[in-house]
């Protein structure tokens, strides 16, 4: 029983991590309150839907197309809609809200408001330590882990990655030492939106698709970031796992309502005791 609960928690946690990871990149490096990040996640899911269900491709090619195309879309969005508001938070909020409305309504216009589903990439269930896990969830965790490791390697080992860290710590100082902040922002947006699209595409078959699924992703992303700290990737991992485990462990022992409340209390406590998050820098 414990094994099942813990496994449930870790799985949920990874799904949250994927969303939060992309959001933290955009927030800390691009420097914009990207309220439409949930909608990017949603569009990623719908692109997979179009290529997989409508065009008949296999799941993985569709996922790849989605990640790349949405990442590129993100770069365009950053260049034209977000960059002008880098130092203008109110403006950023307004633009991104407009983007939310446009993306949501656009998807409704193209795909209709109804719920859509994507067939699983892998059928069947496997049993680990007496607990059951569907193959598609395991797949999601594996792909998620691979993406995160790739991201960490990129940040740690490449010049651009290091430049991203510099920009997230102090944008002006980074510019002073010759870093092309605009280019770095584009890269961060590319990665952040790509991750969001991956998250959307991977959760598509597990759950379902609706034009309004973005709000949930945004809120969970913000919760993970508050817990883990803005701009911290390890923080996002820890934050996501904590939130996931709370859901997985408390619900079966108490109730869904209790899990919600305790989740909130934990976040509030962190905010009070360590507002920069568990791993954040102030």
């Amino acid at each position, binding site marked *: 029983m414990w094994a099942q609960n813990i496994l449930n928690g870790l799985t949920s946690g990874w799904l949250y991590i994927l969303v939060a990871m992309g959001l933290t990149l955009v927030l800390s490096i691009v420097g914009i309150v990207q309220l439409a990040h949930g909608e990017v996640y949603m569009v990623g899911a719908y692109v997979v839907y179009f290529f997989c269900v409508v065009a008949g491709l296999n799941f993985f090619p569709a996922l790849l197309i989605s990640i790349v195309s949405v990442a590129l879309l993100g770069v365009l969005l950053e260049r034209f809609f977000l960059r002008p508001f880098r130092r203008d938070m109110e*403006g950023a*909020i*307004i633009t991104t809200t407009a983007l939310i*409305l446009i993306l*949501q309504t656009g998807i409704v216009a193209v795909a209709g*408001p109804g719920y859509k589903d994507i067939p699983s990439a892998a059928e069947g269930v496997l049993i680990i330590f007496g607990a059951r896990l569907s193959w598609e969830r395991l797949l999601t965790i594996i792909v998620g882990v691979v993406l995160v490791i790739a991201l960490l390697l990129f940040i740690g080992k490449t010049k651009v990655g290091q430049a991203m860290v510099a920009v997230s710590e102090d944008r002006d100082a980074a510019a002073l030492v010759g870093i092309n902040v605009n280019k770095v922002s584009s890269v961060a947006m590319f990665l952040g939106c790509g991750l969001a699209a991956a998250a959307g595409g991977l959760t598509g078959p597990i759950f379902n698709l609706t034009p309004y699924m973005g709000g949930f992703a945004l809120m969970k992303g913000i919760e993970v*970031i508050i817990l883990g700290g803005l701009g911290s990737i390890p923080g996002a991992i820890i934050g996501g796992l904590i939130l996931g485990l709370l859901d997985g462990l408390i619900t079966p022992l108490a109730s869904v309502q209790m899990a919600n409340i305790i989740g909130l209390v934990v976040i509030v406590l962190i905010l009070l005791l360590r507002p920069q998050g568990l791993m954040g820098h102030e």
Partner: protein
Amino acid sequence: MNRKRLTKGLGLAALIIALCALPSFVTGVYLAHVLITIGINIVLAASLRFIATSGQLSLAHAGMMSVGAYTSALLAVKAGLSFWLAMPLGGLSAMVLAILVGIPFVRLRGIYFTMVTLFLSEFIRLIVQEWKRLTGGASGILDIPRPGAFVIPGLLNIDFSIKAHYYYLILFLALVSLLILYALEHSRIGTTLFSVQQSDSLAESLGVDTAGYRILAFGIGCFFAGIVGAFYGHYYTGINPDSFGYLGGIYVLMYMVVGGIRRFPGPIIGAVILTVVPELSSGLQEYEPFVFAAILLIIIFFLREGVVSLPERIRKVRKEASLRSESKV
């Protein structure tokens, strides 16, 4: 009193009189409803701007409305309190919550403070939803009583049996709120808040308790959100946690920015425009959000200072044009 201020004062007075007389000329409950909604949004936008004068951007207004609405509704329904007592208490509870939240969090800056306020709004919604015994949970509270009648024998009988009475109430609340906010902004407090916004380290070095002033601004702004929330509950006679989703707080920000954050009339103009537009474009049904998004983008890209800056802009453009033509001669 110079001529400028005299004409300004007369203009305002004329506007107020016209607003008071409006129900006699305009009938139609739907219109009254739109005007009431505008009134609510004006107070929300103006009070949000007051918080912004201290350099903080709050997205918690939806949650604060919720606090005011539920406090007032519960006091009226469960404790039988009169609206005229319950409403101010609604405002006060929002203010107290704001102060309590402000104390630990005003030291957070910029984006982080804003994210926390967004989360606060959602937090309030979830608490209201989960605390079923107190708030009725997802079902909300229905049958909230009308405000008690306000009677001047022989002259006035406002018993809130028709929409126009609610219109008068919100008109009154809006005018009083705007007056208070205007006065505060032009007082020592207002100047201090502005200095905190401009450079808080400088203000601190002069002995200003910047954190204290931020908390004050946040508290006052949220007080008005609470008041309006209370009005909302008694007007619609029914509320539930989803009536105050965090998106509402973002919309209030939009009224403020689209109208223009730098000048006092800005939020008022923004609230009017952005309330009227969705009603006018309701014919488009599921595509209405496109129109709204278009307006947001047009303003934010081409008129960043807001609609209130339009006359200034036009003047500037004209001036530049005339300078250019002069230099050609």
